[in-house]
């Protein structure tokens, strides 16, 4: 298990091993749990929603409830995506921008740490 050996060497080099850092299966379990939650949500949600549009966003559900009560908005959005496709594209843009920045920041932190470890004790295995 070279990976495990690397990790424990890494930990002792930093004198900072947390109790969880050396347990890669925890990550796998967490990912499986995440997938399971959405699989379960999807199936049970599909069974429950008999309405014409299933999995409508809660924000729009509430907006519809208010509209049914006769509430009319007193201000219109300055810009409205003119179709569902354009809207989902813009949502994708938001997620993409966020993902890019997140990846850049985490990658940079990881690179800095690797560089620091290398400066301390020569070329050493990092995770």
């Amino acid at each position: 298990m070279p990976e495990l050996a690397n990790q424990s060497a890494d930990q002792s080099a930093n004198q900072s091993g947390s109790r969880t850092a050396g347990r890669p299966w925890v990550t796998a379990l967490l990912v499986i749990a995440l997938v399971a939650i959405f699989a379960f949500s999807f199936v049970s949600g599909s069974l429950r929603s008999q309405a014409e549009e299933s999995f409508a966003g809660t924000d729009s559900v509430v907006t519809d409830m208010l509209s049914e009560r006769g509430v009319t908005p007193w201000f219109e959005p300055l810009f409205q995506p003119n179709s569902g496709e354009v809207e989902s594209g813009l949502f994708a843009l938001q997620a993409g921008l966020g993902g890019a920045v997140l990846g850049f920041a985490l990658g940079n932190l990881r690179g800095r740490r690797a560089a620091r470890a290398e400066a301390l004790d020569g070329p050493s295995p990092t995770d």
Partner: protein
Amino acid sequence: MHIAEGFLPPLQCALWYAASAPFIIHGARAVVTESRKNPENRLLLAAAGAFTFVLSAIKLPSVTGSSSHPTGTGLGAVLFKPPVMAFLSTIVLLFQALLLAHGGITTLGANVFSMGIVGPWAGYGVWVLARRLGASPAVGIFGAMFVADLSTYCMTSVQLAIAYPDLSSGFVGALVKFLGVFALTQIPLAIAEGLLGVLVLRYLGRIARPELLRLGVTKDAVHA
């Protein structure tokens, strides 16, 4: 948790703006202070902001047959204390109000109050409590992210119930109705967000341990 454009009475829009403004200004100053401390802080701040940006863009299916999005504000609140999240959430909500017609300019004050103030503070409170009680960082971050997410939607329900009390059952009746839509749908999403928080904190513990120690997020420096 986005109250749509124009759906709160003008007076309430103004009041929520007034309530949120000091937090946003204080948060902006906190962001500047933290990012000036050192370059690693700037990277972690960017990561916390980007995390919220991504998560609030993704609508996920829930057991109720509706879909909703997480908020991702608990992570930044734990790393940098809640004030920074008031500012970062404002940026996210402004982006969505202007480009996606999701939320709105008139309701921005109210939406910032739920997502940028109530959520992060509640989540941070749970984190502090969990750590004081001796819980591990993993348990702490799970609780923080879960509560930050769920409390945001509860606050939105309160805001809507204040604006539109039920004709027969009043404020409480309306609150129950709005919570029925928002909070129930949100529970599985908040659990998922909590698990994701554990994953991210574990990863940060590997790549940014000195920073986490400096920020006071983890204290277990010595015993391996």
